[in-house]
């Protein structure tokens, strides 16, 4: 009997995560030099990232990655594809 093929994970952009959500980075997209910077700051595919909070004015957002706090704007977060259970 064929198993149900429905995916058990959700793929979305980092910007779509709610505060408190954690997910795994799948792909970093956007302008190349920003992509390289984000990768080198630790947002490498396979890394777990958590959305800690938003700034009082809504933007930027504070992430928790590799044991430290990193803040990026929603525009950049929108280019990061993540997967969460």
């Amino acid at each position, binding site marked *: 009997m064929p198993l149900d093929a429905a995916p058990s994970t959700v793929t979305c952009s980092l910007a779509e995560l709610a505060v408190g959500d954690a997910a795994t980075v799948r792909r*970093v997209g956007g302008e190349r030099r920003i992509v390289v910077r984000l990768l080198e700051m630790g947002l*490498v595919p396979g890394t777990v990232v958590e959305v800690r909070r938003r700034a009082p*004015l809504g933007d930027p957002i504070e992430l928790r990655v590799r*044991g430290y706090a990193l*803040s990026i704007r929603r525009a*950049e977060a929108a280019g990061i594809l993540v997967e969460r259970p």
Partner: protein
Amino acid sequence: MSASPGSAPTASPGSRPTATAAAGAAARHPTILLAGNPNAGKTSLFNRLTGARAKVGNYPGVTVERRTGALALPGGRRAAIVDLPGTYSLTARSAEERVAVDALLGRGGSTPDAVIVVADATALRRGLYLATQVIDAGRPVVLALNMIDEADAAGLRVDVERLARDLGCEVVTTAATRRRGIDELAAAVDRALVGGAGAPAPELGARLEGAIARIEDAVRAAGLADDERAVRTLALWAALSVGDDELEVPDALRVAVAEAHDAARAEAWDLDAELVAWRYRRVDAALDDALTGTHDDRKSTSARVDAVLIHPVWGLAVFALVMLIVFQALFAWSEPLVGTIEAAVAATQDAVRGLLPEGAVRDLIVDGIVAGVGNVVVFVPQIALLFAFITVLEDSGYLARVAFVIDRVMGGVGLHGRAFVPMLSGFACAIPAVMATRTLESRRDRLLTMLVVPLASCSARLPVYVLVTAAVFDPDVRVLGVLSIGAVVLLAMYGLSVVASLGAAAVLRRTVLRGPRPTLVLELPPYRMPGVRDVLLATWQRVRRFLIDAGTVILALSIVIWGLLTYPKDGAAEERWEARRAEIAATIPDAEEQAVAIAATEQAQAGEALRRSAGGRLGRVIEPVIEPLGFDWRIGIGIIGAFAAREVFVSTLGIVFDVGDADEESEPLRDALKGAEREDGAPLMTPLVGVSLMVFFVLACQCMSTIAVVRRESGSWKWAGLMVGYMTALAYLASLAVYQVGRLLGLGVT
């Protein structure tokens, strides 16, 4: 005594130091680089290692600060330590960012004999990225795990031996602000200098090896390096750095990098992501082996403090309070110190005047040089206070939160969140504010901010506003029944100042300082207690740089302006005035009356001398140019004098109007202005002229000290010139518009 790094002869880039060669190099003064992430306590470690006797300069060709100092190694040798800018990786997009990789590979100088990499022990999973890059470059490396006390407190344990084995270099734990581990670090460096380079870097894996091989060929062909490790380091660096950059790189290399990326894309993988992931896999492997204990940072003190400080309501309240304190410090707390300095300058002038015979030389020394030095030193209290504050804000980690909170507003006009504190400080005084732009990482952001800061309405403009509003507005007229019209106009000037700053930033960002879209990728470090010694040291270094670099320019300009406003003199006229005073002394018996009459002659004499001077004549010459703004030659002289410092406008006007030594509160000066008439008999200072004049002062760059500091911080006269140019144009056009439109509409002409 400190050895200058450039003088240390080292092995050429092509050779691997053998034991004997290394011993030879170590016999001379070795050069050691200090690299590490920002917020890892690198500066603090540098201060402990060099004992605070650092020299500050620039890297050749770029306005990147370069600190060098001397380290006493065990065994008696002295090494030169060169502090590299804090960086998260060797990847570079601009000449400024390239400094680290160039220094590491000895390009444009000599290769370092050893490198100390400083890492924040609580952020190793990110921090070791740079460490592996440096280790792979081939020079002897010692890894300093700084802030080890914080790691211990957080429950993190590092097995130092395992880590050293996994990474292939010596590892030492330190806590720089507590002076722990410094000796061990020096000993490790000593061993590394003799030991030579560590193990070669691990393989990249088939896919990456193939991609990088192409780039390595281009590196070798361009003659950029011949040592295999240097070739690989440069190739890896180029793979991530080259492409939509501002680097000077041989075309062949550029092409090779582009081809490597295209080839990867054609095979459905990303070269950038693979390279970075490869390196992070090594970091993770080493830490999985050597690092134990996790810390749930949600319960940490930093997290709890952040809950308040970034809270929408409390956070903004604390933020406003902190900014208020900074501002108040600049505005008010520096005043007593400034007063003391001014008194000291006056006393020195009197003393020197007494010592020297009358004449031009004495005048030059007393009114030119001593006053000029006074003009420089008077800024020290504000600079020291602001930098002490900024260093505390930065080292404590709060400055990153400020940038985080305010980014949305600043980002809108293309400014970085960290530009907020400098811009706010500009409302007290632009000089320390321009210097404070150093906290911005990108050169473009620094330039943009420093060109716009002088538009903030500084405290020196206040005397001008106060004098003008008192002279043209009736103090009893009320707006909305509460505010006097003078106060409303004053507020309007501050509002104009804010609008102009943000507008100028937006325009400059789209024209002269066009560049890649600014982004925010900001680390929020844990809150820490700043080390008192480090704060004082940083403040002192900043003040010293100001005195040496900007101070000389300010002094020179002071003397020039003094000369313009004093010469040429007329000896015959002076004799006539002396004769008049003798006459008064002889004919008026009453002592008080006599004193008043003599004072009047002195004021009239000063006025005449000023009008006769080069500066005075210049006022006449520019009159046709400033007439459309509503000004006449007397205001013109005031504007010329104000170039020395804006508040000098008031005292200069005092002299021009024969009132003598006046400040903005002076009744005689106000009356003189109210009663002043143009040549055709019409009143000079109408409300419209008053507003036009204030608008001019809001927007014009009338402060030679600002120009000197911008020149210093930007590295060339070009940017300072641009600033003067655009601000003058802006001020002229705005003032023109206000006056002409006002006249057309018949506003405030009476």
